[in-house]
């Protein structure tokens, strides 16, 4: 057993209001630089929708992540040695600027300098890349709130395995529904970006599992941009290096939550330590799609088990991390309650960020002109859900509907469990049956309620001190790295004369 510690996150999607405050906080802190204008290490997508970069989930187009080969072995979908060599000078799987968007600003000076005339002047949009006047035709959240749109939502790849009837419902007025999906780098346990890098610049930090790009070693091959199925690595056209979400490690190392977490209005984010068995990660990624969620869960180790703690010490996990793992909100959501699920586990990178699927827009519907949750009782009517269960299964369970139904049953049971405490319109017996069917104890239901609704930041952010000074590789002293704004030392490549 090779026990590793991972700093992991949970997003509770019922609480996400799609305000993009996380994106703005991240952008202001990390990517407000020349060459990084188009990058949004954190972005928020409207689902159903096409996302950023557009249709990033389509691996027929982008060929990211891992796949199981003919011999049952796990291989990169693209950017293995042969593929990378053949695509050295032309890589059709690479997203282009049009797939992201052309960043713009306005020629503000015109407001002051325009020639005299009858009209007040206006500042026209200009490209941040070329400085030329441009038409704004795309943005980082171009289909924001546009669920039900034939141009965007209908091209969501997760709709492909839905029946015609399920699809039609999503585009019918008064049935249209949507949810938000905030995304950062998943800091995967089996990152395909790290595997693809020809320069060995990408690495997963030993002490906390944060995936980083060494800016000295990166030669700008961009294999990682193709190989990451979440399209969360971005090429900086100014420095000639690739960049990605660093999970705000300079903030984590000083005891602060990541900027996206810290600014979250809906308090949807939870951050804590998970222990996992690194020896089993590759094997766990070889099972069929519908077994993937369970398979990945089986790699996560219970920090309350003394044997696991002993093994963790043997593997060099610090005592502080082991202690923190025992009060990790992420462990509760992912393993104890089994509410939080990985995004697109079928990409087989074992993402270390987890999502609690939303309940509210899914179950609500209009019945005879009245908004109701379910005319037939709140259970067992997943067939008429407003967003088809299959859609959520395609997002969070590699198509396995049973996993999603299990989560939604728990969410419904908790709501009834709390309802009966303050009102008498639900029968006690009914609530007991809901809990039993959802496989929840009353204590668990109370715990879910507390961590979901009234948890303080100390409950949601449980982070031990990171022992960077112990894990720091020789040759990179703390003094040297100081003040380097998290990107390490950057030396631009020499080009031409």
């Amino acid at each position, binding site marked *: 057993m090779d026990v590793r510690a991972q700093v992991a996150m949970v997003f509770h999607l019922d609480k996400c209001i*799609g*305000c*993009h405050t996380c*994106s*703005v906080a991240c*952008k*202001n802190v990390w990517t407000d630089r020349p060459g990084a204008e188009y990058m949004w290490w954190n972005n928020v997508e409207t689902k159903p929708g096409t996302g950023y970069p557009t249709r990033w989930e389509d691996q027929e187009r982008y060929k990211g992540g891992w796949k199981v080969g003919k011999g049952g072995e796990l291989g990169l979908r693209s950017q293995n040695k042969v593929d990378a060599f053949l695509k050295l000078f032309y890589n059709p799987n690479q997203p282009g600027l049009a797939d992201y968007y052309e*960043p*713009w*600003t*306005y020629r503000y000076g015109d*407001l002051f300098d325009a020639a005299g005339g*009858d*009209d*007040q002047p*206006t*500042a*026209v*949009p200009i490209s941040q890349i070329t400085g030329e006047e441009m038409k*704004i*035709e795309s*943005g*980082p*959240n*171009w289909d*924001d*709130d*546009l*669920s*039900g*749109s*034939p*141009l965007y939502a209908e091209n969501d790849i997760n709709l492909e395995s839905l029946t015609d009837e399920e699809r039609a419902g999503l*585009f019918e*007025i008064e049935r*249209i529904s949507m949810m938000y999906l905030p995304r950062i780098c998943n800091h995967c346990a089996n990152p395909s970006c790290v595997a693809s890098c020809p320069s060995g610049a990408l690495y997963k930090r030993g002490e906390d599992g944060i995936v980083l790009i060494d800016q000295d070693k990166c030669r700008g091959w961009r294999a990682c941009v193709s190989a990451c199925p979440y399209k969360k690595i971005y090429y900086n056209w100014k420095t000639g290096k690739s960049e990605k979400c660093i999970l705000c490690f300079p903030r984590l190392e000083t005891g602060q939550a990541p900027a996206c977490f810290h600014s979250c209005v809906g308090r949807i984010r939870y951050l804590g330590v998970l222990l996992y068995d690194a020896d089993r990660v590759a094997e766990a990624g070889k099972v069929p799609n519908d077994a993937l969620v369970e398979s990945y869960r089986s790699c996560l180790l219970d920090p309350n088990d003394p044997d696991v703690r002993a093994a963790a010490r043997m593997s060099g996990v610090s005592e502080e991390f082991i202690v923190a793992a025992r009060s990790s909100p992420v462990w509760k959501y992912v393993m104890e309650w089994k509410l939080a699920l990985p995004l697109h586990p079928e990409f087989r990178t074992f993402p270390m960020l987890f999502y609690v699927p939303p309940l509210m827009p899914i179950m609500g519907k209009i019945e005879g002109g009245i908004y109701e949750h379910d005319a037939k009782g709140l259970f067992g009517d997943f067939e008429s859900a407003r967003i088809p269960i299959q859609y959520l299964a395609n997002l969070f369970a590699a198509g396995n509907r049973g996993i999603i139904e299990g989560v939604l049953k728990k969410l419904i049971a908790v709501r009834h469990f709390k309802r009966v405490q303050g009102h008498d319109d639900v029968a006690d017996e009914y609530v007991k049956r809901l809990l039993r069917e959802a496989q929840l104890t009353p204590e668990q239901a109370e715990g879910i309620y507390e961590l979901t609704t009234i948890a303080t930041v100390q409950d949601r952010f449980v982070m031990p001190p990171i022992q960077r000074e112990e894990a720091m590789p020789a040759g990179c002293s703390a003094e040297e790295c100081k003040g380097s704004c998290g990107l390490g030392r950057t030396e631009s490549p020499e080009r031409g004369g």
Partner: protein
Amino acid sequence: MISQPRRLLTTPFWTGITNGPRTYSAYCQNLEERIPWRTLTGRQHFYLDHEAYVAFGENLPTFKPRPEAAKVTRDLEKSRVPGGALVLNYLTPHGKWGIHSTYGDTLRMKTLSRGIEPVWINDRDAGLLGVEDNDWVEVYNDHGVVCTRACVSARIPRGLCFIYHAPERTLSVPKSPERGGKRAGGHNSLTRVRLKPLFMIGGYAQFTYAFNYWGPPGVNRDTFVVVKKLARPEF
């Protein structure tokens, strides 16, 4: 105040209690300090028994259909409706990221909002106009004109369109062909003030003016506009 904005006092006209770390919530004073609601009955009530309200049929909050453009609002008496254009009801609701004078014209917020405050329009209405998502449109009536891009959404009901308030008139505002090539306006160029007779009632229980307490209403839904495609925006 300058170095760090902070709350000053619990205002007498608002009913929240914002002392210490508490956030504003309405009617806290009435509930916790047992202050009667400032109505004739001292309670919250929906029914208004004033004779003018009764005469107007507004003594109870009830559904009222959208007003008619030609007979009631008369926004389009001097504006032409060319072929291919549509007459739509026009609203200026709170935006996704701010209300009233919240400043949203920063580059960051503009980047998250298509670089402009678009006019939201139903997909089938847009089809009638020959307008696709992100095409330029000209929106006008007797009061003014707005030139902006369309955000085509199936979530908008047919027969109406809206522009979130409140963008400034500085970024990416084309000139209006319909109005002789003059610079187009902002969302409020299309609206007008309508004084509702009921708001002239005074000195009667809660119908008494006080700052931040009783003022003129918005004219929600009471405006109509002509929308047509703008093939080539000129700046």
